[in-house]
């Protein structure tokens, strides 16, 4: 180390250079950090939304009744399981027709007696299902379940006819 280098070493502190930054630098830094925080928030919400959607999808798969497997009659015999499935499809179709005409024409006040009948049939169906699940199915229960569906279907058809008549009368 020569004399000049020694001199520099001993005066090192004086050789540290300071430059005042421009006034915009701090606000730029804050802006960048804010952007980062917002991005993190967006990621968090995106992940949370994805998890929620995943839960809903998983839940709907988990809890959705696989009709063929959970219908009481399918446990008893495949043939009656298929009959029950066909009856359910008919009931669903007719229910949708009734719902459409009711919602479109605001007939919610009409047919309260039909609704009460359908509710009773639904309650009876739940009881039959409990019996099948706990005691198994026999011909009597099987017949009762099929009749339950047929009555429900009949009620829905009557309900639909009556609503149609009201609709035709109102538009005549």
């Amino acid at each position, binding site marked *: 180390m*020569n*004399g*000049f*280098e020694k*001199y*520099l*070493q001993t*005066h*090192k502190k*004086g*050789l*540290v*250079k*300071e*430059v*005042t*930054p*421009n006034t915009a*630098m*701090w606000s*730029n*830094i*804050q802006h*960048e*950090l804010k952007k*980062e925080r917002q991005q993190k928030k967006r990621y968090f919400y995106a992940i949370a939304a994805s998890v929620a959607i995943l839960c809903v999808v998983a839940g709907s798969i988990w809890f959705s009744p696989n009709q063929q497997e959970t219908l009481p009659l399918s446990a008893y015999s495949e043939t009656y399981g298929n009959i029950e499935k066909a009856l359910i499809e008919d009931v669903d179709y007719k229910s949708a027709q009734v719902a459409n005409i009711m919602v479109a024409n605001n007939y919610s006040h009409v047919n309260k007696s039909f609704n009460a009948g359908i509710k009773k049939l639904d309650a009876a169906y739940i009881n039959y299902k409990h019996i099948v699940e706990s005691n198994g199915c026999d011909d009597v229960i099987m017949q009762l379940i099929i009749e339950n569906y047929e009555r429900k279907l009949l009620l829905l058809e009557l309900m639909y006819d009556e609503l149609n008549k009201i609709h035709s009368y109102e538009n005549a």
Partner: protein
Amino acid sequence: MHNNLPIAQLVKQAQRQNQLAQLELFNRFSGQMLGLSCRIVGRQDVAEDLLQEAFVKAFKQLKSLKEPDRFAGWFKRIVVNQCMNHVNKQNLMELADNHTVLNSEEETDESYNEIDVSVINKAIDELPNGCRQVLVLYLIEEYKHKEIAEMLNVSVSTVKSQYQYGLKLVRKKVKEVLV
């Protein structure tokens, strides 16, 4: 409010996203770090951009700093890395041919006690890129030759020769002013 707080406490508060603490850290370190950046990259506008990026990076990564009282060294490392990445990307490392100066200047017994450090600082600032970077990092920032060589992607012997070349140039410029 934060003016008298020790660095470690400021850092702890800044780690909890306290913006006043972050501002105080900025106020305490920006001047020196901008001076260092300017000397490494050679241009104030570029140095300001790099320092701004370094602050953003540091505040984002501040939670990873386990020992808050080591903030100064930790942050300086971030600033130097930021600048060196720029130097390497822009190929700013000019290795000057040092043989002429090394051979023409011989050390004599001179007294340097009367030299004003501002003269030396000016001479350092006017050095060519390569030897200025090496001289600043080795002499003032106390990096080792090997560390500088790794940062600049050159050999240790190149770093040593650039340092010696820088010293000679500074001494020459200082002598010119004194005469």
